[in-house]
């Protein structure tokens, strides 16, 4: 599945997207920190279908997933 990256996280990853293969949010998190080591020391949120999720969650691969650094609007 393709994960959308934004802001500082896209910068650290060197790309606005990342291909991962994960069947749960927990598995996704593990892969994300492996692929983007800078995430370890960073506050970030994961949005599934444009909603921030905090608890574990099964993923079917059809969801729109995004990794979001701290917001800075306004």
């Amino acid at each position, binding site marked *: 599945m393709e994960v959308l990256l934004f802001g500082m996280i896209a910068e650290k990853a060197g790309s606005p997207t990342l291909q991962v293969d994960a069947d749960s949010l927990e598995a996704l998190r593990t892969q994300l920190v492996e692929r983007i080591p800078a995430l370890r020391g960073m506050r970030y949120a994961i949005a599934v279908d444009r909603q921030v999720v905090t608890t574990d969650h099964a993923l079917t691969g059809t969801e729109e997933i995004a990794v979001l650094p701290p917001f800075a609007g*306004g």
Partner: protein
Amino acid sequence: MSDAKPHKVKDIFVEGAIPPSFIAESIAKHATRTDIGAHEIFLGQVRADVIGGAGDVNAARTAAIEYTAYREMALERMTIIREQAFAKWPAMTCLHVHHSLGVIKAGELCFMVFASAPHRQQAREAVAWVVDRIKSELPIFGREILSDATHIWKTNL
């Protein structure tokens, strides 16, 4: 100005800075709505913050902020915030929100929240609440471009 319709997704994003003339035009459009007694407007302006050592004459300053957004999520969240605002302040006659994307220089306007109502209390409370919600809930990202050509990432929290 018929913003009270539910579930209508409006695009709040504008490319580049918000010109003051745009705000004047927005105000002028309300002259026909003679049930309005109060307008409250919040404007965000890019600040030339000193980054790092205070008092250091060589310290870099914010020269501009480059805004990007996760547009689809931002517009979904904004639609919910708008509906909740009209539910909380039913007397509010209209609510207009604009946020810039792209490079906005220090001194330029990047954000507008504009509420109108028969009386000031509703417009005042709604603007404060909507501004705070947008800052904390909309996935908008800001790269602060410094005067020494380096950059840092802005965070609201």
